[in-house]
């Protein structure tokens, strides 16, 4: 094996090391060849004296690894019993005084809007058969019907998003409450 073959085998055996380390190591071993050749030895002789590239790479990799004593043992997770009384009291009073009234208010508003929507739809449904018999008022009648339709769609969209975010908000609020109750602040 000549110098070039030795170095390339060493390089591939060092595989897992960083580019910087590999470059330095190849420089060190290359230096060995330089010295040896100057001392009158052949590349083949020197490659034999070095030992196989695989065993050299193995020694480098083992030398780089930290000795077992230096590897910090993972600290056992502290099972500290945290005092959650404060958090629990906070959860109770916050819910009683603010969250539940607020939640009920929003629920009532949504319910009200649903009722209003139903009322408008009912109005439109009763309006439609009446329009044809309106005579001179047929144009304002159609205009009114279209306006009502537009309002119905608008309210429906608002309701859709309102209910969606209301339920998402409720879910995450309950989750936050549970976490606070179990783990404290």
């Amino acid at each position, binding site marked *: 094996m000549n110098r070039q073959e030795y170095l390339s085998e060493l390089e591939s055996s060092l595989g897992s090391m960083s580019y910087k380390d590999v470059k330095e*190591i190849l*420089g060190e071993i290359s230096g*060995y060849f330089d*010295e040896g050749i100057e001392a009158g030895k052949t590349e083949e002789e020197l490659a034999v004296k070095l030992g196989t590239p695989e065993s050299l790479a193995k020694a480098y990799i083992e030398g780089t690894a930290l000795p077992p004593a230096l590897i910090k043992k993972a600290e056992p997770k502290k099972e500290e019993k945290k005092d959650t009384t404060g958090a629990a009291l906070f959860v109770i009073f916050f819910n009683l005084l603010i969250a539940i009234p607020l939640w009920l208010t929003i629920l009532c508003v949504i319910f009200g809007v649903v009722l209003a929507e139903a009322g408008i739809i009912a109005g439109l449904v009763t309006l439609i058969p009446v329009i044809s018999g309106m005579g001179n008022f047929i144009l304002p009648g159609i205009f009114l019907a279209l306006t009502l339709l537009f309002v119905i769609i608008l309210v429906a969209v608002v309701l859709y998003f309102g209910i969606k975010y209301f339920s998402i908000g409720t879910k995450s609020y309950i989750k936050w409450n549970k976490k606070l109750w179990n783990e404290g602040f």
Partner: protein
Amino acid sequence: MNSQYKKGVLDMCVLAILEKGDSYGYDVADALSGKIDLADGTVYPILRKLATDGSVTTYLQESQNGPPRKYYHLTPIGKNRLNMDREEWKVFSEAVDDIIGGTV
């Protein structure tokens, strides 16, 4: 010779060689393999490890012909370690000699 024996004491031997004066890889390998039967490559990973743990420092110095050489210099940390290893080795080797019946 059992390579496990060598492994344990080679660090100490390399430190001892550097105690006599700064040296470069080829020279250290030559000094060691002249006395102990081992591959010249063995010293390079040891030198690298010693440089990483602070026992030696390195510097480059021009050589008359050819590229600059990487020299290794023993630090106070390395010297301390060498002295401790030496003490331990003395006690250990004397005990082993005693057990196997060699001459001390």
